[in-house]
């Protein structure tokens, strides 16, 4: 514990903390920063055995090929931890005592926690254990910064390299090496690449592309052994009895969740291909959460639990975990939605959203291949459930994710989607206008039907929700919306009543009752938030019908999008915002607001929405002081 003394922090601080996060990957640090924002007084500690600050791991490929410098890898500006009063301890956590709520650190010593986030990430699969020669110098498994530093140093003296693995990681590595003028031999175990994501034509298109870029591709080929000379790689022997001379062997055979702590926990933690978590990232053990590559989330389309080893989902999970750990889940409006992966495979941009493949019969698939691109859409009636795009241009990937997440009808844009010419901004703003029109004319929020969110993994869901509801019942903070738990959802509803009550009173002239969300609408609620937020006259998407009625719209012309707080200051009246206290303070004035606005804002999801955009007001006040 001498390290902490050096840092000048009292022992009482060090020995336990309200929020303890294991791992300083992007999920861990995002959770810490977000927790600090939500709870300015919490003691937050990150315990990590990584010797460098949080970096943009997807950018390591660019780093390896010399496009970036080390300093450009930082995910957060240097000093963020200190600025946010996040204490970072370098130690290895060996086990968790869930009854006593403390961690056992390597080399003795414990550390107490109020709530614990496991964000230990993943570890590489590497070569099979028995592979001869896997320890020669020049055989690198690419995963961490150290591996890429090693690769970068070696690149200058390499003429031939062998890349092993059939995933996006391997392709990116191949392309990086090719850009250095290295002859690349790429060994792929199966006949196609990424069989879970790409179908046959897509796979051939990618392979063709990479071949044209100059790589030598060996399909259905595995490594039988690596030969070396005086401890250094000299070549690779394949199972096709071929010897490929090379100076470098790069192993990109995928990763698996680093879930050792789940096995070293005094209470059984559900863990299967990652630590199983619910929508609030709670594990099956009380007060323990998991986020990032280590967490296995439920796929809303298939109902199965799988880790999402992607940057964006790790960020999102970090945020949601922070909200859950600080007991403010209801303020976090993000939801995971469907899996989403966008990357460059050489010159090709690949995007997969949802589940484009492996559907049963009721799903229609449309494909389009033209001009060296390929697109595949899976449609359930009028709704998109999966989208795969390969081509020179990356579509508006997050917009397509949103279309799937929200189950928006795509009948009118089917062709544009298929051709890859979708103007997502125009489409979404049109959708918003329509939704706003409905909202104004009927006073009801638009119906958002979740796509294929029927849980097929019912057994495991039940296990999780029952275990998770136990702490929720005992905890002082009500945690609403545990999956299908209707009782829990209702409990959350009643807990919120004091806040929504006054708002309803203010909206007295409107006869339309506040539409109570149907039970089990956990999936739809956050989506409704996004949808209705953007109706705001301040986002420039003011529907024609709403214009004369919205009093706050009067000043919207001046500024493209003022923050809610500014609005509150300039108008003295504002729709209810994230903070219930300020909403109540402003209530008398808000009585003169259009009834529909107040009515809809009084509904729970809209409160979430404003909390989502609350970061703007926060910095606003910061800049104002300058």
């Amino acid at each position, binding site marked *: 514990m001498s390290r902490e003394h050096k840092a000048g922090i009292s022992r009482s601080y060090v020995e336990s903390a309200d929020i303890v996060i294991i791992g300083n990957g992007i999920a861990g640090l995002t959770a810490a920063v977000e927790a600090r924002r939500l709870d300015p007084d919490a003691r937050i500690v990150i315990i990590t055995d990584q010797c460098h600050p949080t970096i*943009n791991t*997807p*950018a390591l*490929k*660019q780093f390896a090929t010399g*496009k*970036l410098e080390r*300093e*450009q*890898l*930082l*995910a*957060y*500006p240097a000093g963020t931890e200190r600025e946010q009063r996040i204490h970072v301890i370098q130690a290895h956590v060996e086990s968790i005592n869930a009854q006593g709520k403390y961690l056992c650190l390597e080399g003795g010593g414990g550390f107490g926690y109020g709530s614990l986030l496991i964000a230990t990430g993943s570890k590489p699969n590497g070569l099979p254990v028995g592979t001869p020669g896997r320890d020669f110098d020049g055989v690198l498994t690419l995963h961490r910064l150290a591996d890429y530093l090693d690769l970068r140093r070696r690149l200058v003296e390499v003429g031939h390299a062998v890349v092993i693995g059939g995933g996006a990681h391997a392709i990116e590595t191949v392309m990086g090496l090719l850009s250095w003028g290295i002859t690349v031999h790429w060994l792929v175990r199966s006949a196609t690449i990424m069989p879970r994501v790409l179908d046959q034509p897509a796979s051939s298109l990618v392979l063709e592309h990479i071949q044209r870029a100059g790589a030598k591709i060996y399909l259905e080929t595995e490594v039988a052994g690596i030969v070396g000379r005086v401890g250094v790689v000299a070549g690779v022997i394949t199972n096709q009895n071929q010897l490929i001379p090379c100076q470098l062997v790069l192993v990109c055979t995928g990763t698996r969740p680093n879930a050792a702590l789940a096995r070293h926990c005094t209470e059984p933690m559900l863990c299967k291909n990652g630590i199983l978590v619910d929508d609030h990232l709670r594990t099956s053990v009380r007060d323990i959460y998991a986020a990032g590559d280590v967490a296995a989330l439920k796929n809303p389309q298939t109902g199965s639990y799988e880790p999402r080893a992607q*940057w*964006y989902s790790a*960020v*999102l999970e970090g*945020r949601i975990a922070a909200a859950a750990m600080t007991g403010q889940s209801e303020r976090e409006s993000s939801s995971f939605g469907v899996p989403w992966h*966008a*990357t*460059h495979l050489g010159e090709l*941009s690949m*995007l997969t959203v949802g589940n484009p493949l492996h559907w049963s019969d009721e799903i229609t698939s449309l494909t389009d291949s033209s001009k060296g691109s390929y697109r595949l859409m899976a449609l359930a009636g009028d709704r998109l459930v999966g989208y795969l795009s390969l081509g020179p*241009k*990356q*579509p*508006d*990937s*997050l917009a397509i994710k949103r279309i799937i997440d929200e189950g928006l009808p795509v009948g009118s844009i089917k062709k544009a989607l298929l051709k890859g*010419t979708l*103007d997502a*901004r*125009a489409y979404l*703003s049109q959708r918003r206008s329509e939704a706003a029109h409905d909202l104004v004319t009927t006073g009801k929020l638009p119906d958002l039907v979740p796509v294929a969110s029927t849980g097929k993994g019912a057994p495991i869901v039940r296990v999780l929700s029952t275990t998770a509801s136990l702490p929720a019942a005992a905890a002082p903070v009500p945690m609403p919306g545990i999956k299908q738990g209707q009782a829990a959802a209702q409990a959350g509803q009643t807990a919120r009543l004091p806040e929504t009550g006054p708002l309803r009173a203010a909206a007295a002239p409107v006869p339309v009752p506040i539409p109570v969300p149907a039970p089990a609408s956990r999936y739809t609620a956050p989506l409704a938030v*996004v949808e209705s*937020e*953007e109706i705001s006259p301040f*986002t*420039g*998407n003011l529907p024609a019908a709403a214009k004369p009625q919205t009093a706050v719209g009067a000043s919207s012309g001046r*500024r*493209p*999008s003022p*923050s809610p707080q500014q609005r509150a200051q300039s108008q003295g009246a504002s729709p209810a915002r994230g903070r219930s206290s300020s909403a109540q303070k402003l209530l008398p004035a808000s009585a003169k607001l259009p009834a529909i606005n107040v009515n809809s804002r009084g509904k729970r999801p809209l409160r979430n*929405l404003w909390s*989502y*955009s609350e*970061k*703007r007001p*926060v*910095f*606003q006040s*910061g*800049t*104002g002081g*300058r």
Partner: protein
Amino acid sequence: MRDSVLLHKTGPQVAQELQACIGCNECLLACPALAEPITIDVLNRETLSGPISKPVARYARACYQCGACVAPCPVGLHRDAMMMWLKVRLLRSGREE
């Protein structure tokens, strides 16, 4: 093809895009207006919230929304919209001073 593109994305959308940024710097490498060494972490942070530092402010003013940053993004994000957001923030903070 229509050429009219909405430059402005809404706040939550910009925040979402910033979160999805993998920090590969491809947009900055393609940018013709970037004249100072600005790292992506600082740019993202200051686009989202907090005070805007001098170099980033200069960069935001220099950005003329040519859109060269959009095509290289492996993740399909719109740095032009983020820069627009930064410009808006810059204007606002200037007004408050």
